[in-house]
């Protein structure tokens, strides 16, 4: 088994080189277009993902699932082709499709702007200015694609084994050079690399099975495989699906056992009105990213949590991983879906930004869903699922209909009530930054206390003789003075040193 992945930019000649190389080596040649064709036949809406790049739109919850399905499908497809024997693949991100497989030869093909402009003018029949626009826009879309799909930059040269410019080589010579490089021992299959491809295939195939099945296609899963053991991680709100996972994967070939686990870190964010463009949102996402946590939203419908008698009720639930797909949309409709019935969608203002915020979280891979609830404090407490391992509860702006003083008091009481009744830290959104994120204030504190610590250390180590003489002074008066000075001095040093350490750890995101 040998795999050569050629990552090509817009009209750089990578396709021609890949085909020539495959011909020279006698390997099958697989292109991204082939993968897309297969993915569309699988029922994945690749075009929607692509157009999200072109139109600069965020990913809806539905697209997040399409992305998971697409990534798993393309990986499984490529692994299956690779396991059959040799393969040359060319596309945008060939170098990212088989992570952890050592013997893959990863090549990037580049060309200068003039070469590409001429190629665009010739291939697409465009005038020069339009060709320039085309090349620049497609480059940007591709950059966006790689970042959105894989979270890396396609311009990071460390991801490639070789970078080839077809201005310096003819296609024939470049293919001949790559043919020789492909024979090097570094790019030959080893039992470890074969096992890595087997594991990738199994994990990806399991994710595809989950996406295909009616019981599980609406949920988000992280799936990996190691030595035939498949591990499926699901979000807390999908706990009800855990029992369905083994039966769904039953017909998958090549696995030894299946493990299912719930994601272990979650933040519950309670608020009345959400705004995915707000600073509070950014802070919550930053903390969640730092902890690898998913964020669950619980919107308090206005007027909630004030009385004691109102029964608890869930008014509306948006699952960050459940798209609003009607069953009929799984039947073939030529790509034309049914309109949403009038009044079927609530506006931003009506749902307090809940749906949009869940979608933005989903786009960033941090959503654990959201719901809108109403009821007294006691009932709201009952609606918090105690089986979910929350790492923290964040309480934002609540009781907005009250005056500012009453709002502050009620919010403080609400936080205290939650803290008393659930075994999880409860913090306000405005405290989040100070407690968990490194800001300007932390920077000044770090610099200030670091200066204090350095001055103390400098003075102590440059005046050791005087200090020892002071500490070993004669007479009880001097001994008492020395003891008092040490008693006062040590906590000051400890506090300063502790503050520096704490701020530094916060800076490097270790707590």
């Amino acid at each position, binding site marked *: 088994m040998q795999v050569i992945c050629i990552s090509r930019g*817009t009209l750089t000649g990578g396709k021609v080189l890949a085909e020539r190389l495959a011909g020279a080596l006698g390997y099958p040649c697989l292109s991204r277009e082939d993968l*897309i*064709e297969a993915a*569309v036949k699988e029922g994945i*809406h*690749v*075009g*929607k993902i*692509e*157009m999200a*790049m*072109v139109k600069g739109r965020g990913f809806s919850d539905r697209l997040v699932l399409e992305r998971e399905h697409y990534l798993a499908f393309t990986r499984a497809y490529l692994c299956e082709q690779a396991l059959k024997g040799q393969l040359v693949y060319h596309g945008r991100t060939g170098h990212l499709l088989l992570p952890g497989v050592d013997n893959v030869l990863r090549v990037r093909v580049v060309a200068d702007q003039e070469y590409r402009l001429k190629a665009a003018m010739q291939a*697409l029949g*465009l005038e020069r200015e*339009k060709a320039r*626009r*085309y090349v620049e*826009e*497609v480059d940007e*879309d*591709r950059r966006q*694609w790689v970042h959105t799909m894989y979270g890396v930059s396609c311009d990071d040269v460390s991801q490639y084994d070789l970078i080839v410019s077809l201005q310096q080589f003819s296609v024939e010579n470049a293919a001949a050079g790559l043919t020789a490089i492909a024979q090097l021992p570094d790019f030959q299959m080893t039992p470890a690399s074969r096992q890595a491809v087997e594991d990738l295939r199994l994990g990806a195939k399991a994710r595809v099975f989950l996406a295909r099945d009616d019981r599980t296609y609406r949920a988000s899963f992280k799936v990996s495989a190691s030595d035939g053991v498949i591990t499926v991680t699901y979000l807390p709100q999908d706990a009800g699906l855990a029992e369905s996972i083994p039966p769904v994967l039953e017909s998958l070939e090549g696995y030894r056992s299946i493990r299912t686990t719930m994601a272990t870190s979650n933040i519950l964010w309670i608020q009345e009105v959400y705004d995915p463009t707000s600073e509070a949102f950014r802070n919550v996402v930053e903390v969640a990213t730092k902890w690898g946590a998913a964020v669950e939203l619980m919107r308090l419908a206005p007027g909630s949590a004030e009385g004691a008698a109102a029964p608890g009720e869930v008014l509306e639930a948006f699952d960050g991983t459940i798209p609003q797909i009607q069953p009929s*949309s799984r039947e*073939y*409709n*030529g*790509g*034309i*879906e*049914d*309109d*949403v019935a009038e009044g079927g969608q609530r506006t931003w203002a009506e749902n307090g930004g809940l749906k949009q915020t869940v979608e933005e979280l989903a786009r960033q891979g941090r959503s654990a869903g959201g719901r809108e609830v109403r009821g007294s404090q006691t009932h709201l407490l009952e609606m918090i699922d105690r089986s979910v391992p929350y790492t923290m509860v964040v309480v934002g702006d609540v009781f907005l209909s009250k005056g500012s003083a009453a709002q502050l008091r009620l919010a403080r009481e609400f936080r205290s009530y939650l803290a008393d009744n659930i075994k999880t830290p409860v913090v306000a959104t405005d405290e989040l930054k100070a407690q968990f994120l490194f800001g300007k204030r932390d920077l000044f504190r770090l610099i200030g206390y670091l200066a204090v610590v350095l001055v103390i250390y400098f003075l102590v180590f440059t005046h050791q003789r005087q200090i020892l003489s002071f500490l070993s002074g004669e007479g009880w008066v001097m001994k008492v003075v020395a003891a008092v000075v040490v008693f006062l001095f040590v906590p000051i040093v400890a506090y300063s040193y502790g503050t520096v350490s704490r701020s530094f750890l916060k800076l490097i995101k270790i707590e």
Partner: protein
Amino acid sequence: MNGSLQIMLVDDEPIVGKRLKPALAKYGLEVEVFEDGPGALRRLREKEFDIVVTDVRMEDVDGMQVLEYVLANSKRTKVIIITGYATVEVAREALVKGAFDFIAKPFKPDDLRAVIDRAAKALGHPGIRKSDD
């Protein structure tokens, strides 16, 4: 410009026309559906449409050829591309060549109506709204 908008819909899958035609007609649009590129080109030689909605992948004559024909023969007609095989390369090619917009399948008729509404306004038409039943 206040008359009914003349729409040409070209898609080789009959179900697309079957689902979209009534959804557009409901908004007072006059829609002619074609299931092949050559038939659409023949009709374009006879009549100037306000808006052409065309799939990209079709046998004989594809959506890009329809786009190029329209742009070469009618300055005012707006072309909207629809496709289930959208890639950024195809979308950018269509937009650079002069397509009004590009919609990836699957979509809802509402999505297409919104683009048609924008195209209509760009033509000086007041826009589209639901006809009284």
